[in-house]
Each structure stands twice: as C-alpha cells, then as structure tokens.
C-alpha cells in the first residue's frame, strides 16, 4: 500500500479553484520534489494534506496508509505521522520551546495510545538533535520561534521533525529566506532523517535546494495540476529551460 495517495484532488479557496484534479502517489522511503512557478498550487497542496482550515475540497481523495486523511483533524493527522515543515513558522510568545516540544510529543503519543516520554529521555534526545542542528540550548528556553532568525526557525522545524519521527515530511519552501550556510545546515538535518520507513515531499520553487536534498522523483506543477513527472534530471532541465513551457501545457 502506498504511504500517501492523492487522487484527482480539487480544492477551492473561497470561490476560486486552486487545485484542478491533482494526483500524486508517494511510497515509504521515497523523496519527491514538487516544483512549479508561484501560484501553481504547491503550498495549497501541503496545507490541504496537513489540514489547514480555509480550503474546501470539492472532489478527490487523500489516503494515508489507506485511511481517509480528509476526515481527520490536523492533530490526528500529526499523530498518524504527517508533518508539515512550515514555509513561515509562526512565533508563539509565552510558550517556551521546550514546553511546546514536550507537550506536542506527548499529545501525539497519547493519541497513538503510547505512554509519555520520560523527562530525562526527552531532554537527552532534544539535546542530541539540537546539537546536530547547531541550535543553542538557550534558544529552547525562549518562546517558540520568538526572536529566531529565518535560519533558526527552519532549523527548529527540522528539530521537531527529528523529535516527532513522522512517516511523511512535507517541506514547504524550506529554502525561502535562507542563505547558503543556513540552507546547508537545515538540509543536512533533513538528510539525516531520510530512512526506508519515511517519505518526504520537498516543495520548492528553485532547483538549488535539490542539490542538497536529492530527490528520487520530481514533479512539475502548473495551474493546479502535476504536468510532468520524472527523476532528479527533470529538476536540472527546469533550471535550464524555466517553467514557461509548462504554463502553456497546463
């Protein structure tokens, strides 16, 4: 069974249809890149998979291990193993990062019928992962993302990904706002999480990110559909020829 099956998905925001019948299948262990021009519906797809309010699914299905994802609340999806790394992670003043991480992890474990993580185990794990991501310990005492730089916010997303151990990671424009060094640290963190049991969907406008996170498959989106699929070579082709050819195709 595929990990994720998106079948002929049609999505509206207010009165405007953004996705016009999108189909995508992702199996365990695969890394899929979704590329496309601004406004092609890439972020909409990531939001709909994660369950963000404000989108109306008018047709089609999203199955996660055969279960209807669209019937689940966002927190249930997270507990099942769906993780969205936000393009713009929000700042939450007054909620200490460490408290947030523990509360979220235990909420997911509780929903799966697992026991709470013991505090020493949790702290040990946070320390290990944050060290590998070059996240200073004092950052974890601050409010979630409060006063974090763009790079720090993205690394905080990767930290959560490592802690929650999701089976599907969706990285929404992870490279936006990052310089090369920050991008490399975040990408190294993501690569460390690649495993046979975990799939990733890497959404990006630019080919650059895919030099660091090398995909198994590349899909080109235009005007709310996947218009072409291929392997990593497709990304290089796009870099050379641009998206214009697909705007016509769609």
């Amino acid at each position, binding site marked *: 069974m595929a990990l994720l099956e998106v079948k002929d998905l049609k999505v509206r925001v207010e009165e405007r249809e953004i996705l016009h019948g999108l189909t995508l299948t992702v199996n365990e262990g695969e890394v899929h890149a979704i590329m496309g021009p601004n406004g092609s519906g890439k972020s909409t797809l990531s939001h709909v998979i*994660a*369950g*963000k*309010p404000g989108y109306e699914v008018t047709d089609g299905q999203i199955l996660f291990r055969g279960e209807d994802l669209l019937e689940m*609340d*966002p*927190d249930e*999806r*997270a*507990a099942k193993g769906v*993780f*969205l790394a*936000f393009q713009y*992670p*929000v700042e*939450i*003043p*007054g*909620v200490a990062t460490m408290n*947030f991480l523990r*509360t*979220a*992890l235990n*909420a*997911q474990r509780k*929903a799966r019928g697992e026991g709470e993580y013991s505090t020493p185990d949790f702290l040990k794990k946070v320390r290990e992962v944050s060290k590998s991501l070059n996240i200073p310990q004092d950052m974890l005492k601050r*409010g979630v993302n409060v006063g974090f730089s763009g790079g720090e916010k993205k690394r905080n997303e990767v930290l*959560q990904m490592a802690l*929650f151990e999701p089976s599907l990671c969706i990285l929404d424009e992870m490279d936006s706002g990052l310089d090369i060094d920050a991008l490399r640290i975040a990408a190294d963190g993501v690569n460390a999480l690649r495993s046979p049991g975990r799939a990733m969907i890497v959404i990006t406008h630019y080919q650059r990110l895919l030099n660091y996170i090398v995909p198994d498959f590349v899909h080109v989106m235009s005007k709310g559909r996947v218009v072409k699929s291929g392997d990593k070579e497709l990304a290089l082709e796009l870099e050379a020829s641009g998206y214009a050819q697909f705007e016509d195709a769609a």
Partner: protein
Amino acid sequence: MNVAVAKTGKGRAVSDLFASAEGRLPGSPDVIAVRREAFESYERLGLPHRRIEEWKYTDLRALVGEVLPLAATPDAAALKRAADAVKAHAVDGASKLVLVDGVFAAELSDVKALAAEAGFKTLPEVLDKDAGLLKTTSTDAVIALNAALATDGVVLSIADGAQLSAPIQIIHIATAASASAFTRSQVAVGKGARVTIVETFVAAEAGAYQVNDAVIVSVGDNADVAHIRLMDDAPDAVNVTSQFVTIGANVKFNFFNMTTGAAVSRLQGFIMLAGEGSELSVNGVNLLKKTEHGDTTLVVDHAVPNCVSRETFRAVIDDRAHSVFQGRIIVRPDAQKTDGKMMTRALLLSDEAEADNKPELEIFADDVSCGHGATAGALDDSLLFYLKARGLPEKQAQALLIQAFVGEAIEQIADDTLREHVIGIAERWLERRS
C-alpha cells in the same frame, strides 16, 4: 419611577436585614452608631446601578437585585467542610487566617504564630476600642453597606523592620448557600517590613452566596509588600470587594488579582502613592465563562512626585461572559516625574463574549510620563493551526495559548511557590473548560 420603586423595595429588605443582624454585629454602642449611619447612607443610595458612572458596566441592581440575609454563624458541620476547603486551597508554607461565612474561625487559623509575628487581632477585638476601622471617605454604597454589616475580619500590624518569610494567607470560605458574608480587614505594614499577603475566596459546597469584603492596607516607608487576591468563588456567587491602599515612600508594592469564579464579581481598588520613590505594580487576570460578569476597577492616585506605577491586566472571556476593566490614573499637581503605565488586553473565546475597557488618565502635573493601551481579540488562527499540526487537540492548543496570554500578568508574581499556586488555579479553570 422604576428607580424609586426599586429603591424602596430593596431599602426595605436591607432595613429588615439590618434590624435582624444588629444583635450579631460586634462593637460598642459608639460603633453601632457608626454602623447605623453607614447603613442609612446605603439606604439613601441603594445598590449601585448603571447611571452611577463608576458602576456603569456593573449594574448591581440588574445583576444582583437584592442583598441576601447574613449567613448564620457556622456550626460544627460547616467548620468541618471549611477545614477540608482550607486543605485544598492553602498555599504551601503559608500561615493561615480563616473566615467562614464571614466569621473568624480560630480553630482553623494559625492564631498564636500570627499574634506574635504580625500583631494579629480580629475585627471585633479592635472594634471594642475604636470605630475608626469602619470609617472611610468613600461615598460608594457597597462600602457603606460593608461598614454597616461587617461581622468579622482580620487586623494585622506588621512591626517596623519585620521580615516575614512565610506568606500570610487569609482564606474566606462560604459554606452557607443563599446567604451573605460581610467582612472588613486591615493590614498595616511597618517601615522597612517585608510581607506577602494572600487572600483566597472559595466555597465549600455552597452556592448562590454573596461576599462583600473590604480591606484597608497601609504601607510604611521602605517596605516591600506582595499582595495577592484569588477570587475563586462558586459559579453562582457574588463577590464585591473593595480595597484601599496607602503607600509610603520608597516602597515596593506588588499587587495581583485573579478572578476565576462568581456569577458577578467586582474588585475595586483605590491605591494612593503618598510617599516619593515608590514602585507600584498592579496586575490582574480574569478568567470568565458561561454568563459570568467580572469587573476590575482600579484607581491609582499619584499624590506625590517620583513614583512609578505599572498595571498589566489580562481577561480571557468565553461563552457569554463579560469582563470589565476600568483603570484610572490620577496624577496630582505636585506629582512631577510620575511614570504611570497601564496595559489591558482581552482575549475573546466566543462571538458572544464581551470586554469593556475604560482607561482614564487625569493628569494635573506637566512633567510626567503616562500612558495606557487596550486591545481585544480572538485567538490567532495561524498559531492554533501550527499547534494542531504538531499534534495538539483544539482545546489543548487553545489552553497553551491562553496560558501564554495570562502568563504575562502572572509572571509579575516574584515568588515561585505563589506563582505556581496561581498557575495551578488557572490550569484547573482551563481543564474545566475542556
């Protein structure tokens, strides 16, 4: 026309009440004369209503209607229930003074220790000698009614230089349903003294009761005082509390109030900075649900130069509840170099929730820095979605954001044990919500 009718009706009810209560009211004939005068003043005014500016948003005539008869002196069964409530609500390590249905309960209190450390006496003991404690310059009807009917209270005199490490907790417990308790207390803090006072209002299996409390606080020069009020009454109770604070020079005074219960509640605080160089921090949290009405009305009066006042107030309002914040800062003509700031924020958890914010600055000096700000809004959807996408169910995500919101006021409490105690009460409120 309606007013006259209402006033006669209610005046009559209280008149009967006063006559029936008179035998229980402590004090010499002189004191009783002061009470009678206060009562007559109340009778002329009646319960405050919306056409009295200070009570515009809290119309007691409409919200409460009538004053209930005095609660009976608690019997053994009531004291047993109160003892259980004391256990449940005591602050770790605090010395306790307990009032049950408006009557001081010596057997539940740390009388000996506090008589030595804090000059503790009961209100009746003080009134035997002097009626002064019943007199105020206020023209407020509920305060007059309190003077007329106060049955008991605690009187503390903290000696100059005394450093009290353990907080003193005054616990008001209601065990009698459909009855009222009138209490009046005084705390006099000597020069250079350090003390923490906690006041807790709770019910022991009682509902629909009324509390009318007054506290008179005076703080000597160079003292350091933390004063925390926790109004955690039964959901159908009424609690109207009046507080008068006079602050000397170079004082640190940190006040915090949290309201987590009562159908109708009002804390009205009148705080005067009467000595230079003092720092006043006034903070409050209202957590309201269902049809609860919670009013915090504060007057901070800068009577002298060079004082700093800060007010941080947070209201969380669910269902059809109604939160009121009225904050007035007065800067007298001589009070140059005053630095007074006030910030109030309301979080509306439902479309029908209501918040009224009324800041007022009355500035008569020309070299001051004063300001106020007020906001009202809902929980941020983008923050809620982020938390849910990380696995937190809706109510838990809301609870985390609400805790962060009120945390800005609660973190002003310096003492770790007390802060945790207050956070615990807020958490229980949030648990009852989900």
